[in-house]
């Protein structure tokens, strides 16, 4: 089997991208995604070396050509990427909001100290617990 330059280049790119993705984040729930990524990278190398593998898969599932198969796979991958990114972004936004709110409320407690009675009087104390409550979740 003759290895062409484009194949070497593509394999290098796939390996680099996979390695970079591997390093990001760090939780148990990521294990599955990482295994999937490993399989995906392995399959990418195989399909670069043996391009006909796409044709065989295509025929297996009843799609005309391997190139169509690649396109469909890409569409699905892109859509799932869009949705996961949106959800991750929302998660990030919730945290960022809590942080900004914390700052805003602390500033307000400093600017409008309560006169008499319990209340937030510059952080700490029992008044602070009330303010802390929404941020306590998650």
């Amino acid at each position, binding site marked *: 089997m003759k290895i062409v330059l484009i194949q070497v280049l593509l394999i290098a790119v796939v390996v680099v991208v996979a390695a970079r993705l591997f390093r990001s984040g760090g939780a148990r729930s990521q294990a599955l995604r990482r295994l999937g990524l490993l399989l995906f990278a392995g399959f990418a190398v195989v399909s670069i070396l043996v391009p006909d593998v796409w044709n065989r898969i295509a025929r297996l599932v009843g799609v005309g050509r391997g190139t169509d198969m690649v396109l469909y796979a890409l569409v699905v991958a892109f859509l799932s990427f869009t*949705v996961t990114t*949106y*959800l991750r972004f*929302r998660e990030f*936004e*919730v945290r960022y*909001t809590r942080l*900004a*709110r914390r*700052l*805003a*409320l602390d*500033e*307000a*407690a400093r*600017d*409008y100290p*309560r006169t008499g*009675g*319990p*209340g*937030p009087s510059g952080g700490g104390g029992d*008044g602070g617990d*009330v*303010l802390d*409550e*929404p941020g306590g*979740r998650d």
Partner: protein
Amino acid sequence: MNEEVWLVVPLFNEAQVIGDVVRSAREVFPNVVCVDDGSADDSAAEAARAGAVVVRHPVNLGQGAALQTGFDYALSDPGMHWVVTFDADGQHQIDDVVAMLDLARTDDLDVVFGSRFLDDRTEAGFAKKLVLRTAVAYTNLTTKTRLTDAHNGLRLISRDVVSRLDITQNRMAHASELVAQIGGMKVRYAESPVHILYTDYSRAKGQSLWNAVNILVELILR
């Protein structure tokens, strides 16, 4: 008597009108907290000059986030029994708030939602009505509530309910989220007719109907 009420006003670039809105509100309800959501104009200073407490978001987060911040601030006052969510652009009437408060006190309610569709004082265009009706139909379908107007910014909420709310929809979908969370609690709620004053100012600033699409997407992908 009204010392136990806090008006929560999300504030974003309303310097032209916020001073008058706060001043007229404070004639009846002395406690007003404006949550300035990163306004680029003089909104925060105008609100403070009119006597409101101003809590300033360091960056723009959205109306839903501003409401939750206002709730948290109001909760820090141990004397607070009621929170009223009130718009900054002068669309809402203080008389309506007084009526809602009376209703809640006499009928022992936890939440009173303002509704534009219980009488015909509010003049909304056909397209706006259609979108609002569709929105409320969707909200009723997906939550356990039965309302006639779910996207009204005027609401009266008891301390107990406010302390259990956690609004995470920062942008427009927070109205539905609020209804959904209240619907999930076993609390007594009712609707009260309110008059939304569509002035040229509020119309020019009001959200476009395209926002209905955004709200739907935010609700489905959460």
